[in-house]
């Protein structure tokens, strides 16, 4: 069956017209009529010819003559002049070209209908919306907030054209700036220039000074914030947005003249690994101002460090516990992280009786009322009779005085002692310690005496975050050990700020490391009057007067 088929024979006198719209219904039988259908697809068949009346000289009636192409027929015209061979009518068939045209017109009509319905109906906003708005600009909270402004929560809230009909949209398009046909202006437009749409943004975001105070010129909101990119937080600006200023020496120089001591100065930063400045904590060799005495090396590797209640070796995780989101760590608290080892048990014979923590006045009051404290302890221990309780208290006081001398001496020791080894090798329930677990407040705290000899303890200033302009997520870095970034095993002083240097971060956050290294990965933009940093400041969570700027106080 692989042989070629011969071309079928066909009447060479007959031919197809490529542009004809309709073909005779008899064509499928090989007998198309000579006239064929008209342009409208109507059959024009009547008879094989149109007879002609010929009247010869001298004749009165004349004679009908057959005019059939190809020769007169045998029967000839009828006496009344009609052709004697009528052709049966057919149903003309549309050519593929005609059907294609019909389909095209149908599709065009359907498209126009769909567009008119969608643009004219209540679905218009949803239909032309190029993408969901960010969560801050949508949802119930936004609607409630916006209802108090101008009430319009549809497209028209930001876009004037959103409240117009089709002709209004065309008018708005033609009068946009730059206009549709202003190709030169479209090419020469300057990045970040304020636009008419910014007026809509500023109806709610009333101040445009959202960044540092040293911004050389206002940047259009929509330059950085691309809306209609889906729900959730508004899309983060790209590096291109940041380097518009931070990658331009001229702009940064102008910026530095506005506020000379601006963070970052006039430096150019286009790429984190290449030219981003070292963190100022590192480059300016800043020190932790906290007065609490803490030695990371000792706690992590000291031989005298007992095991915490969980029985495991003391490590970073015992004190640095992640918050609910895992981004940062919960604040260090004495009760949660220190007390297990650093108990406030002052009397080895009465380990269940401890000094209060948190307020030196309470400690002083406790010491001044020791007989009462011992008596209350006796009552809590099951001694019902007051005489029995008082006797218990007296015996305890006598034995304590035998060890510590007068009450005044004891109070001084409690507050001011910095002894690293005490007379006892075991305090309370904790065994194996080489020295007293509670040598005195000054062992950990800065304790100062006033002129009257009264102890004052400097409140510890525990830093939750050192880089308050930046975002960090510890949970995303859980694949790394703490010591890969934080050199805690080398830190003996509280003043050591054991943040990693930039190069440590750039080992991963760089094109070579393969991890995101865009500006927005770490930085918050709106740090000025109305941004997140300002909100932190307003809430008392930011303190710029602590010698380092900014810091977040432990809470």
């Amino acid at each position: 069956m692989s042989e070629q088929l011969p071309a079928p024979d066909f009447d060479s006198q007959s031919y197809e017209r490529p542009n004809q719209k309709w073909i005779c219904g008899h064509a499928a039988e090989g007998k198309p009529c000579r006239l064929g259908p008209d342009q409208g697809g109507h059959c024009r068949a009547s008879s094989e010819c149109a007879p002609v009346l010929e009247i010869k000289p001298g004749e009165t009636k004349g004679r009908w003559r057959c005019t059939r192409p190809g020769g007169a027929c045998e029967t000839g015209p009828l006496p009344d002049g009609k052709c004697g061979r009528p052709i049966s009518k057919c149903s003309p068939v549309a050519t593929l070209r005609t059907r294609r045209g019909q389909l095209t017109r149908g599709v065009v009509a359907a498209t126009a209908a769909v567009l008119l319905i969608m643009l004219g109906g209540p679905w218009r906003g949803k239909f032309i919306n190029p993408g969901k708005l960010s969560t801050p600009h949508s949802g119930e909270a936004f609607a409630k907030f916006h209802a108090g402004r101008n009430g319009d929560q549809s497209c028209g809230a930001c876009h004037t054209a959103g409240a117009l009909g089709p002709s209004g949209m065309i008018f708005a398009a033609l009068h946009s700036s730059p206009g549709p046909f202003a190709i030169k202006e479209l090419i020469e437009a300057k990045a970040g220039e304020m636009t008419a749409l910014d007026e809509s943004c500023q109806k709610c975001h009333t101040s445009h000074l959202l960044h540092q105070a040293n911004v050389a010129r206002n940047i259009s909101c929509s330059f950085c914030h691309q809306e209609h990119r889906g729900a959730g937080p508004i899309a983060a600006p790209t590096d291109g947005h940041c380097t518009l200023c931070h990658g331009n020496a001229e702009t940064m120089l102008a910026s530095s003249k506005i506020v000379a001591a601006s963070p970052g100065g006039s430096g150019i930063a286009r790429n984190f690994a290449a030219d981003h400045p070292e963190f100022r904590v590192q480059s300016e060799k800043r020190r932790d101002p906290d007065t609490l005495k803490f030695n990371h090396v000792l706690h992590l590797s000291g031989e005298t460090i007992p095991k915490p209640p969980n029985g495991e070796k003391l490590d970073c995780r015992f004190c640095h516990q992640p918050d609910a989101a895992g981004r940062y760590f919960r604040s260090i608290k004495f009760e949660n992280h220190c007390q297990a080892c650093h108990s406030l048990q002052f009397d080895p014979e009465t380990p269940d009786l401890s000094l209060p923590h948190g307020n030196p006045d309470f400690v002083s009051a406790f010491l001044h009322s020791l007989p009462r404290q011992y008596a209350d302890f006796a009552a809590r221990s099951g001694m019902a009779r007051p005489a029995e309780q008082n006797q218990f208290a007296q015996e305890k006081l006598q034995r304590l005085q035998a060890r510590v001398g007068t009450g005044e001496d004891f109070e001084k020791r409690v507050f001011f002692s910095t002894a690293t080894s005490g007379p006892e090798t075991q305090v309370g329930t904790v065994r194996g310690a080489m020295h007293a677990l509670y040598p005195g407040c000054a062992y950990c705290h800065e304790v100062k005496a006033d002129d009257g000899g009264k102890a004052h303890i400097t409140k510890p200033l525990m830093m939750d975050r050192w880089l308050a302009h930046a975002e960090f997520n510890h949970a995303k870095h859980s694949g790394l050990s703490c010591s890969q970034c934080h050199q805690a095993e080398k830190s003996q002083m509280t003043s050591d700020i054991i943040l990693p240097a930039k190069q440590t971060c750039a080992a991963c956050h760089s094109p070579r490391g393969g991890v995101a290294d865009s500006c927005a990965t770490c930085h918050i933009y709106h740090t000025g009057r109305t941004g997140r940093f300002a909100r932190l400041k307003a809430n008392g969570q930011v303190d710029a007067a602590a010698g380092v700027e900014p810091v977040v106080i432990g809470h």
Partner: protein
Amino acid sequence: MKRFHRQFLLGSFLLLLASTGAVMAHRRWSRALPDYGYLTGWVLLGAIILLAVYNARKKLPFLPLGSSESWLQIHIYAGFFTVVLFLIHLNFRVPTGWFEGTLAWLYLLVTGSGVAGLILSRVLPRRLATRGGEVIYERIPALRHSLRQEAEALALGGEMKSPAIAEFYARQLSGFLAGPGNFWPHLLESRRPLNAIMTELEEFRRYLNESERATLEKLRDIVRRKDGLDYHHALQRTLKLWLFVHLPLTYSLMMFSLLHVVLVFAFSAGTR
């Protein structure tokens, strides 16, 4: 080197050159020009209009606008180039939203049908030439009718009329000869339907005498020619049908594109 290959190499080279230039320009200017999206949009719309003009050019053969073949070559390679422009205009992201999504789908359907048409117009004519039996598509119904009449004359009204052949014709062949058939098998180059009929004819042959066998041979030849007509009908129809997708959707695409221009400028940052 044949002319076709010269055209192919030249077109491919120019397409590669233009695409590389467009991507390089995108990397250079996409961040530098704030209104870059509008500019790429105009370029893309211009390219689409150029593609659409090809259809108009075909309707105006009397105008000295270059040969239709040249226009077709421009249409093909410019069509591929618009894919690059389309991706650049989208900034290589998937569009969201009903309107923009529909516009993108329309573009993909028009482009996809165009590519399909290009492939079909390269593959099917070769298959038709290999099979032989060259015939003009519009003549196929008449030829099929002629074959049917020929077969009926043989089976039903021959000089040596055979009831067995008449019954066999009515049962097995009349339906096959009545109209076009086996569209998909022919398109997929399957001979199974023809082989099935041929097997029926062969099995029927042993019950016939000499004169009936001669008639059956003629019927077998008619069946083969009818199958050839069906083959031409299927392939030539396919060569024409892809335009039923490509052309109507092109008009829809143009309408959506023009509305897109209005919307992006009406809702642009420069409009209040």
